């Protein structure tokens, strides 16, 4: 992050500076471009704005714990023996499960300290493995979450991130295995660009359809998802144009010159790679675009009120297509980094779920890049921890899906949290940057 922290808190001044070509903006649509009501919640991107999400996460974890207890037979057995024993057993079960959850996401603090003190490199690597896996899962989450968040900022509901992920995956893996004899300095960026371009083009289609015909992007992106799934199937099926040819419906392996460099080369279980830095850079770029450039201002203005944008001289159709294309490029990067950094090939029946989780991430992060990064780290930790919870405490993965779902419910309906914790506050304060023109086109 190369910016002064004060910049993010105070976005009004740079916005006006970057807006010379539209002078009428100053008088006409002032309430719509609305820097003042918008500035208030963002200037409080501190403890206050973190309170609701933290309470939502905490409440979801408590309900998840209840579920873990309710699905544990030993608790019932202990309860039948003696109700008090049952309660004790319940807490023991929760402690074991959430302990494993934590260790799976961040590592065992004792082991980590001992390993660091011992100075034994293999031991240290083993102790930090959970954190590396959390960061690895967070990487595609950040990209996909940014994709949806950018769409929200522009008033567009991009449900097609999953489909864009597939198309980008195909483009990336094709360049990854077909460009022979190209140095890594050229091959890797080209493969990444292919992913961005694939995602951008695929997302620009619903953008164009919306701009030209008014077709709602929710419908068109969902439909394009199915087309991209089936297209990927056709390409990768046994005997398909991109199948490996060994009787399995998978693409050939990409060449080493297209690999994203690993943090720990030679350690196959430590899969975190430079894709994570790319994701952080993308978050910064999205923030810069949205709050420091004319284009970003246009995107946000159209997102708040396309009519006011048109009145202010913004080319609304162009803005819609650009927003969708940028959103698709980000979704494409989540596929590209997954393939170039982790998978190294693309299988048929490739399923990520990132595109759909991304909607939750954008909501949880309030469509702000910093929020999306934090939300992605949280979901990454939840998913990495879930594995250990299943392995050690035998708690099914579905519990994690339920906890994630509950977090979203509480974020989307903050009144529930306010009621539970008797918080004061107004609805508009945490209004979501959702599309406001549903059904209008």
């Amino acid at each position, binding site marked *: 992050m190369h910016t002064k922290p004060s910049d993010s808190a105070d976005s009004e001044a740079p916005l006006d500076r970057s807006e010379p070509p539209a002078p009428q903006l100053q008088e006409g649509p002032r309430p719509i471009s609305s820097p003042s009501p918008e500035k208030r919640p963002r200037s409080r991107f501190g403890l206050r704005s973190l309170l609701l999400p933290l309470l939502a996460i905490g409440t979801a974890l408590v309900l998840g714990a209840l579920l873990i207890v309710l699905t544990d037979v030993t608790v019932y057995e202990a309860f039948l023996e003696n109700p008090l024993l049952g309660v004790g057993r319940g807490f023991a079960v929760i402690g074991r499960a959430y302990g494993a959850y934590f260790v799976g996401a961040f590592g065992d603090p004792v082991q980590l300290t001992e390993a660091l003190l011992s100075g034994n490199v293999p031991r240290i690597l083993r102790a930090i493995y959970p954190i590396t896996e959390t960061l690895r899962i967070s990487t595609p989450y950040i990209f996909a979450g940014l994709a949806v968040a950018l769409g929200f900022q522009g008033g567009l509901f991009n449900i097609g991130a999953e489909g864009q992920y597939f198309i980008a995956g195909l483009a990336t893996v094709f360049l990854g295995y077909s460009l022979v004899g190209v140095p890594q300095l050229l091959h890797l960026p080209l493969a990444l660009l292919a992913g961005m371009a694939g995602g951008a083009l695929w997302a620009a289609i619903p953008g164009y359809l919306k701009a030209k015909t008014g077709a709602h992007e929710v419908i068109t992106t969902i439909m394009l998802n199915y087309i991209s799934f089936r297209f990927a199937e056709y390409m990768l099926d*046994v*005997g398909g144009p991109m199948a490996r040819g060994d009787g399995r419906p998978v693409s050939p392996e990409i060449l080493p010159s297209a690999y994203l460099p690993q943090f720990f080369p030679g350690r196959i279980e430590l899969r975190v790679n430079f894709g994570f830095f790319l994701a952080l850079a993308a978050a910064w770029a999205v923030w810069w675009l949205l709050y420091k450039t004319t284009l970003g201002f246009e995107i946000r203005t159209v997102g708040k009120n396309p009519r006011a944008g048109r009145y202010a001289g913004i080319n609304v159709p162009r803005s819609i297509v650009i927003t969708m294309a940028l959103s698709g490029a980000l979704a494409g990067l989540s596929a590209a980094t997954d393939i170039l950094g982790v998978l190294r090939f693309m299988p048929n029946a490739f399923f990520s779920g990132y595109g759909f989780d991304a909607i939750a991430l954008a909501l949880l992060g309030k469509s702000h890049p910093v929020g999306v990064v934090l939300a992605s780290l949280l979901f990454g930790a939840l998913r990495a921890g879930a594995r250990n919870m299943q*392995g050690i405490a035998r708690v099914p993965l579905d519990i994690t899906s339920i906890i994630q779902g509950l977090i979203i419910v509480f974020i989307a309906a903050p009144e529930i949290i306010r009621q539970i914790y008797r918080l004061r506050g107004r609805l508009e304060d945490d209004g979501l940057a959702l599309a406001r023109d549903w059904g209008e086109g």
Partner: protein
Amino acid sequence: MRKRLSVVLVFVLLFSLVLSACGREDRGDFQVGMITDIGGIDDASFNATSWAGVERAENELGIQGDFLESQAQTDYAPNITQFINQGYELIVTVGFLLADDTAEFARANPDVSFAIVDFSYDPPIDNVRGLVFATDEAAFLAGYAAAAATQTGIVATFGGINIPPVSIFMVGFESGVNYYNAQHGADVQVLGWNTAENTGVFVGNFESTDDGRRVADELLSEGADIIMPVAGPVGLGSAQAVQEFGNAWIIGVDTDWTVSAPEYANVILTSVLKNMDVAVFDTIEMASNPDFQSFGGETYVGMLDNDGVGISDVAAGAISAEVRTEIEALREAIINNEIDTGWAGYIAGLN
């Protein structure tokens, strides 16, 4: 919602099973970890059947078994790592999509034994046992029985995705029908699969019972009166369609559907059994033996001969006593390699 509920209930059931086994406290110190493919442990198909083999080993051998579910392709590697870090001696991965990760970790961890369902390595890896199935042998018998049982002269099959572990059922099925035609001078047709052209009907997933119902309705309306769906739980939707249509049969796959889906027992002609539980149990028995050194890269091939594959009893009244005798004779002939069930030719035709 109902699916979630059933998932929870299945887990409650599984937990009680697992825990009741633990309750005896006679679990050996041999630990087996199974890693499912994306379908999850309760897919009523290959993940569930493989897990049944682990459970049997828990009961009969006193080993300790655990599973981890995969939700995405990127989950395979950390799931394997989880078991390695927990010190498991044998790791069973289910499905050929896990082949690359399994190979990579097997080479990096020569002290751990691995087994993989539906895949074998060429060249073999010393500490990995591939578990593959000559399902065409059993499907051949089912095709023969179907050709004898059809009233309309049209039988059908369809698959989930066109991958070898699926198409092998369809190739064997078609070969069995063709063999019946040649033996009896009949002209029974097969809808939904053509071995020579490598084309067929595929729903594109292994989950949607709605798809199974829709495809079955189409095949029934085209005159087929026997359908073999090779798509895991998708086929249960087909079974329902067949039951409502009447005067038609369904052929189960992987497990005996009269046991796993008894509500459709009256329309189940037979089931093509792919006994992954037998293979997994066999592997655990082998690896947990105190004298065990290494798999030496061997491959387990489930055949009619070793009960790795088979067919369940054909429904009473569906075929004549003579045909039953013929099927028994065919079984022997296949075991003795006297009949070609089509798979080798199909694979050769692909390359």
